[in-house]
């Protein structure tokens, strides 16, 4: 990254990076992505993910790291081949006192483009920096696998659309589970669902249980076994038997099976952080299914 002396120098420095490329670059920015990193350890991961995301959606990213004293600013540009030209995404890294960070973001946002706030840190409704950055944003992206599902549930009070990377990790599993109930026999069994066994991270297990409760409007017990990644989801449909999706070892495929349902392969991809955040920046509105699942996550029978 190229260090610049202060915030006023960011735009000229970015323009220089674009103009300095003699192969000719196209500026086709589609969004602003603000990445807040509570600790320095998060910065490299965030920058790497943002660079990858920029490879599919040209963006301006502003990475924020709480620090001390006068803001330290650095800029970079990453370019990809596109048609007979290339397209570039921009990154600005700002380290400044925590309370000053929102004021540093405002002048750097590209006007009239959506703003996504990817928050990596503790989630607290009383955190004024979080609240101020949310006010600048159209969507807040958190991760209840790290922040905890209780804390994430509280911030649903903030008036912004919310994305949860833990929910995103359950997406292929929800697809696979839903896919078992597209035909009459299994669908009837779903009416007898009493509980779900989940082997995986706690937050994801709670969200899957909440999803089943909110979609089916019934009480569903959760039997959770802790694993670092989702490995198995089994729906206990009482006398109708169990419907199970299970990962094949550590692979991105698995098997789904149940009564009256031949075992069949399912795709259970492991999305990396860039894929998860990248998936959320295609969404604009409220994800009602997620918010209902989150609200129902604690409704243990």
């Amino acid at each position: 990254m190229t260090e610049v002396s202060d915030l006023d120098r960011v735009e000229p420095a970015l323009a220089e990076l674009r103009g300095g490329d003699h192969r000719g670059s196209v500026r086709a920015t589609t969004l602003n992505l603000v990445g807040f990193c509570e600790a320095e350890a998060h910065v490299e991961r965030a920058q790497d993910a943002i660079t990858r995301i920029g490879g599919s959606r040209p963006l301006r990213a502003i990475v924020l790291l709480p620090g001390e004293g006068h803001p330290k600013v650095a800029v970079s540009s990453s370019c990809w081949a596109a048609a007979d030209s290339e397209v570039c995404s921009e990154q600005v890294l700002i380290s400044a006192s925590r309370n000053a960070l929102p004021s540093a973001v405002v002048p750097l946002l590209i006007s009239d483009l959506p703003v996504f706030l990817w928050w990596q840190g503790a989630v607290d409704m009383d955190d004024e920096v979080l609240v101020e950055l949310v006010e600048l944003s159209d969507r807040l992206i958190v991760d209840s696998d790290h922040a905890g599902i209780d804390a994430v549930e509280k911030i649903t009070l903030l008036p912004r659309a919310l994305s949860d990377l833990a929910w995103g990790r359950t997406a292929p599993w929800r697809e696979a589970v839903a896919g078992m109930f597209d035909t009459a026999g299994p669908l009837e069994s779903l009416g007898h669902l009493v509980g779900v066994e989940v082997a995986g991270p706690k937050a994801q297990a709670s969200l899957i249980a909440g999803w089943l409760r909110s979609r089916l409007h019934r009480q569903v017990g959760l039997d959770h076994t802790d694993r670092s990644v989702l490995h198995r989801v089994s729906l206990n449909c009482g006398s109708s038997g169990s419907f199970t999706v299970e990962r094949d070892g550590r692979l991105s495929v698995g098997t789904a099976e149940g009564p009256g349902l031949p075992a069949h392969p399912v795709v259970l991809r492991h999305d990396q952080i860039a894929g998860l955040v990248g998936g959320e920046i295609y969404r604009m509105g409220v994800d009602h299914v997620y918010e209902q699942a989150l609200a129902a996550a604690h409704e243990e029978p």
Partner: protein
Amino acid sequence: MPPEAAVLENPLRTGLRQGGATQPCAFTIFGATGDLSQRKLLPAIYNLGVRGLLPPRFALVGYARTDMDDDGFRRFAKAAIETHSRTPMDEHFWPAFASRLHYHSGGFDDDDDFHALGDTLTRVDDEQGTEGNRVFYLSTPSSFFPVIVRRMGAANLNNPPGFVRVVIEKPFGHDLESARELAEIVHLPFQERQIFRIDHYLGKETVQNIFAFRFANTIFEPIWNNRFVDHVQITVAESIGVEHRAKFYEETGVVRDIVQNHLLQVLALVAMEPPSSFDADPIRDEKTKLLRAMRPMRFEDAVRGQYGAGYVAGDEVRPYTSEPQVPADSNTATFVAARLEIDNWRWAGTPFYIRAGKRLAKRVTEVAVQFRRPPHLPFHRDAAEHLEENSLVLRIQPNEGISLRFGAKAPAPTLTIRSVNMDFLYGSAFLSDVPEAYETLILDAIRGDGTLFTRQDGVERSWEICDPLIDQWRTGTPQVYEAGSWGPEMAHELINRDGRRWRRP
């Protein structure tokens, strides 16, 4: 209730993002060992599987004359996918996918083979839980379509326990009469809603983007009419020759190969009225209405060409009549330019110029909407002497995107206006992997969504538009044009006589 309508409400499907197919189904490819199957169909179905878009209970049954068992077909399919898939082979995914592949060896004109195929499909239903739902894909030369469809009816394959859909590749006949004959044959065992006529052009993301561009934006639609649009140019240019398709091309020619299907379909999307919804019938109704308003092609308003020798992309190429399997005295047209008119309120008086051909200067498909000049230019004559009309170009391939040309003041002490282009590159805003057209269309056929498929009335009307020209071109000689050019000189005269000129794409 017909099986197609018996879609169950699965409450767990709400809010899922993938939009994959849900109903179990067995997908049969007739001609499974053929070129199209190897290059397009098998890779497309594999990629749908990798993307998690196939139904959870799905089986693929290959049908062809080649003698092979299931394992042999799995090896064949894997080799085809490894060679032609846009994504690399996932060795972890492959075993599960391969377990869904089956093969049935048989001829296209043998009742016993078709009855045996029915038995195979019943066995597949039991093994894979596909519940008697069937999609049949006719990936064979069109001369086999009537034979296969009749045999399917005789073997009761049109009447399975679940839904049935039949996908037919173009050409849908070779003229109006044969299209109607084919429809009569196909309509004996199948209803129109069960027939999916595939034109892969409509599966291209950038062709579908024409819908989005026209009907998701308010700023263009008010000027999308004869009041503001001077004329429209549609170009479908290929730099390749007839390659290995000479025999087919000799019987077909450019009008049947490109104009009757791809080009008229694109034109219909550009010129149709807004549909009431993005559903199959409202869209196809509007497309057909547009085609009905189009005058049939006229000899006087068309130019035919045939490529001669020349250079394309630096390589010397031979003339069409020296291609293998092409007679030296062939009068087959490899190029057409034509002036089309649409007799409706929106487009009356605004001509649509089309051109399509092989061995042209470069491969490009685009729609250029040329707007009228301002009624009065309040500038000194010198200031705007190089100002061109506004134009909006929808580039379909390659470098998919949209380009808007408008006038801007050049930096100079005096007022000088020049034309500048503002480009939007589709691939710049959405750099992610774009699915192949066949992935989109096969998934739609499995889901029963006919939006991107052609309906019989549209097919017939397209032939009504093209047949007069095809008839008149049976005799006579095409203008020879130099390979690597933009067609014969008369193509330029065709548009120049109206005081206009072709764009250089």
